């Protein structure tokens, strides 16, 4: 239920007329801006057919496809490593042992507060001098996992906090040990609460994989670099790649929204209401939402 429905009354004749005018005006402005952009592109020959045609041919498609494969592989590997690590970190941070909790907190705060690129440069440029030389794929994946697990830990922790404390207390009351309380009662429900946010986290992982560009791992951005070095169709290549990213991320976003709708309908949806502030797009731990 959003506020703006009650901000103003149903429009009367004058307001309706004004809405029509502004609607017409805004359509003209938007089309004008788009038109200007297209004219600028056309004036520099960027819309010419010969600049776009090649992307329908097999060699071009193959290069882009390889890039997509690399992107998906890096994203999947990051997810497989970062999600379990994030859950473990959240549990450690929630641990009743002061030292353990403090260490986990320190890890989470540090890796949430430094840019991924800096970490990648460290793995790429600095660590090899101390003979820590990972394969290129892991020079990309390991920093992503280090950073993302911290963010995921915060999301999971928010889920645990949002869960009715009666659940944990009831589990203690029937005599379960701390580990059992967490494993059997608290964690399964908390994870369900933050599932949409976790799905949306895949978007962040996918975006972060673009930094393969910096480590020369052949994902989409790097393959784009490879294509432009040979064809000089820079604008076209990167527009197509950007569209691919936007489409995949949009679908992932829709998936997250779908999961959220399903959870809301289920019994126990009332607990879900408390996580409303855990907007999948803007989760509490995700300062990183915009990082890549």
């Amino acid at each position: 239920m959003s506020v703006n429905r009650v901000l103003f009354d149903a429009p009367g004749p004058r307001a309706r007329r004004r809405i029509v005018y502004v609607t017409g005006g805004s359509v003209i402005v938007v089309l004008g801006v788009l038109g200007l952009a297209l004219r600028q592109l056309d004036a520099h020959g960027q819309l010419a057919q010969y600049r776009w045609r090649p992307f329908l041919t097999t060699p071009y498609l193959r290069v882009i496809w390889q890039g997509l494969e690399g992107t998906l592989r890096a994203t999947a590997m990051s997810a497989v490593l970062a999600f379990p690590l994030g859950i473990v970190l959240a549990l450690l941070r929630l641990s009743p042992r002061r030292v353990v909790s403090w260490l986990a907190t320190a890890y989470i705060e540090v890796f949430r507060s430094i840019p991924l690129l800096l970490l990648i440069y460290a793995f790429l440029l600095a660590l090899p001098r101390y003979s820590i030389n990972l394969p290129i794929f892991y020079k990309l994946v390991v920093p992503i996992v280090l950073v993302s697990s911290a963010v995921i830990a915060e999301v999971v922790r928010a889920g645990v906090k949002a869960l009715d404390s009666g659940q944990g207390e009831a589990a203690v009351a029937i005599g379960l040990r701390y580990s059992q309380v967490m494993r059997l009662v608290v964690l399964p429900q908390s994870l369900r609460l933050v599932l949409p946010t976790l799905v949306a986290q895949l978007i962040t992982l996918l975006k972060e994989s673009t930094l393969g560009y910096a480590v020369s791992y052949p994902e989409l951005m790097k393959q784009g670099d490879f294509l432009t070095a040979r064809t000089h169709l820079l604008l076209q290549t990167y527009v197509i790649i950007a569209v691919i990213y936007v489409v995949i991320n949009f679908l992932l976003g829709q998936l997250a929204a779908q999961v959220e709708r399903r959870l809301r309908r289920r019994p126990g949806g009332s607990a879900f209401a408390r996580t409303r502030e855990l907007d999948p797009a803007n989760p509490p731990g995700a300062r990183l939402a915009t990082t890549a």
Partner: protein
Amino acid sequence: MHVLTDNIGFLMGGVLITVELTVLGFLGALLLGTILAVCRVSPITPLRVVASVYVEFFRNIPLLSLLVLVVFGLPDAGLTLSTFVSAWICLALSGSAFACEAIRGGINSVAVGQAEAARAIGLTFTQNLRFVILPQAFRVMVQPLVNTFIGVLLSSALAAVVSVNDLTGRAQFLNLESAEAVLCFLFAGAVYLVLALGSGAFGGWLERKVAIRR
């Protein structure tokens, strides 16, 4: 240690560029985000559609992809900007999508009863927004907007890929020049950590400061 003491001016220059990029980028994002949020709650359908499409697009495009398009792509279309300005524009564009959602979330978080009550005592639309909705919405927006700010700070490092000489870029440069590589990265990491945790702490303080005691 020499590498740090000898190049402290160089590194601090990088810190300055990072801070400039972050602050300017965030201000741009805030301005654009506010306009977008207003569009998204307005009764004008085309504005709502355009704002939604804009937010979906810029939230889903990786910043690096946007940077490459603007820095290397736009010159092909006859628009040549300095790398700093390009990076600033990209940060503002992608940040604005997140700022818009933070602002919209703030407005939506105000209980409907508040707006209804304001309507019931006869406040007009503007009075309603000014005296009832916005003062409450701003308080809820503080934390998400601080997170957006930190997001812009961390994203600004990506400008180093398109050769802006910010903190990350300079740390990487010094690393190539000197033998004490780890120090450069530790220093840069520490600066980012201080900036991010500092803004987070400031956000927490601000949130407590403006909180309504009920």
